[in-house]
């Protein structure tokens, strides 16, 4: 098992593996999205208090979760990369960042669409909104650092350091903003008590969460393949692939 893992730490081997995995994740994401949206719009009942507008939850919650989760995964790859100096880890981190930023933006946008009918305002300076905004800023900062550094090795490590110091800071930012102001409704899904929403709504949302998750995996694998080709363009195996395609 451990041999297989190290084998795929080489960009050349991972390129092929990623190519084989992408269709699986892309298709399951597409199918789950179809099921999730069907549940969301046709099966799930209208909410007693929030009316039809609550249905944005099926996009909002997956986007918000993924934006946080992807940052954690980026921090993980950054730590692995800095510890073992594995090139592929940095490439994964780079491939994940744009997807994470898109999800962070999506969660802010859908949150605004939800906030208007619920709170009567597109935007309020509430703890979770503000920390999502700051998370989005962190993504932007990391990506602009990468784009400013031409040398890939330096960019990899600098971005990884920034990702890690951001990861240490995220909980502090979250709690500081939370004590600062809170209006957002509390978490509806809580690991310790039974969820306070209808089972069918929960099912639809979880299906959408998996759809978003698989989409993120597929998108970042596509992107990491591009990064691998760009970085390894002087090697023979890339030349072979490109000739085969041409």
């Amino acid at each position, binding site marked *: 098992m451990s041999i297989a893992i190290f084998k795929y730490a080489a960009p050349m081997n991972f390129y092929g593996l990623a190519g084989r995995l992408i269709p699986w994740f892309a298709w399951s994401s597409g199918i789950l999205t179809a099921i999730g949206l069907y549940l969301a719009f046709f099966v799930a009942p209208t909410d007693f208090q929030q009316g039809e507008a609550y249905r944005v939850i099926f996009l909002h919650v997956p986007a918000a979760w993924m934006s946080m989760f992807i940052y954690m995964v980026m921090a993980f790859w950054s730590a692995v990369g800095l510890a073992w100096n594995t090139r592929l880890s940095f490439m994964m981190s780079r491939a994940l960042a744009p997807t994470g930023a898109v999800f962070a933006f999506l969660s802010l946008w859908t949150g605004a669409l939800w906030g208007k009918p619920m709170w009567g305002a597109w935007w309020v300076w509430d703890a979770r909104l503000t920390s999502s905004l*700051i998370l989005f800023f962190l993504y932007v*900062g990391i990506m602009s650092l990468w784009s400013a550094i031409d040398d890939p090795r*330096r960019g990899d490590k*600098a971005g990884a*350091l*920034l990702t890690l110091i*951001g990861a240490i800071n995220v909980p502090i930012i979250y709690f500081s*903003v939370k004590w*600062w102001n809170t209006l957002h409704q509390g978490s509806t899904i809580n690991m310790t008590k039974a969820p306070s929403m209808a089972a069918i709504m929960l099912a639809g949302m979880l299906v959408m969460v998996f759809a978003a998750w698989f989409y993120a995996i597929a998108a970042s694998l596509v992107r990491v393949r591009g990064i691998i080709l760009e970085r390894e363009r002087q090697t023979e195996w890339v030349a072979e692939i490109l000739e085969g395609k041409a």
Partner: protein
Amino acid sequence: MLRFLIAVIRRDLRLAARRKGDWMTSQFFFVMVVSMFPLGIGPDPVMLSKVAGGVLWVAALLASLLSLSRLFADDHHDGSLEQMLLSPNPTVLLALGKALAHWLIYGIPLLLIAPVLGVQFSLPADAIGVLMLSLLIGTPVLSLLGSVGAALTLGLRGGGVLLTLLILPLYVPALIFGAGAVDATLSGLGAEANLSLLAAFMVMTLLVSPWVAAAALKVSIE
């Protein structure tokens, strides 16, 4: 080790003393940014005293970022930074010394200017005291976290703006607790909670950021 740390700090202090123009620029930047706010939002003393904590704190963040972009850049240009990295002394101490020197040169003066600006914003005396205290505890955070950003962006195109993008989000807790301490004093809640949290954040950045800055310096120089 301690001698090396002191040597780094003394060197930066001496350099700053010989380049007073740079030093003045940053202080006047702080004063001017703060002075723009009453012109923008109106001279009502009640409102000004309400926003004073936040305005002064935001201006302090910007002023520190302005000077931080040059924290390592000058030494990098003339090659002395590389020599210091080649020396057997630990890079962590170099990063810590640079950050502490930055705090002494740019942080402390902000703290001393703040009461004057506080009076302009019709802050009551106790709130001015808390403002100074919060800046005393909080400005080291700005120098320490900023040194990480300065090391990461060393020698890059548009380093100054980039530094702002990287570091401002990380400053958020300091801003919230620092400005929050002033607000809490104004509303009669007492600033103790905010100041304690700010101090905790400061201690944490003191423990973490010199190491990250040292690693970033090595990445940027190699």
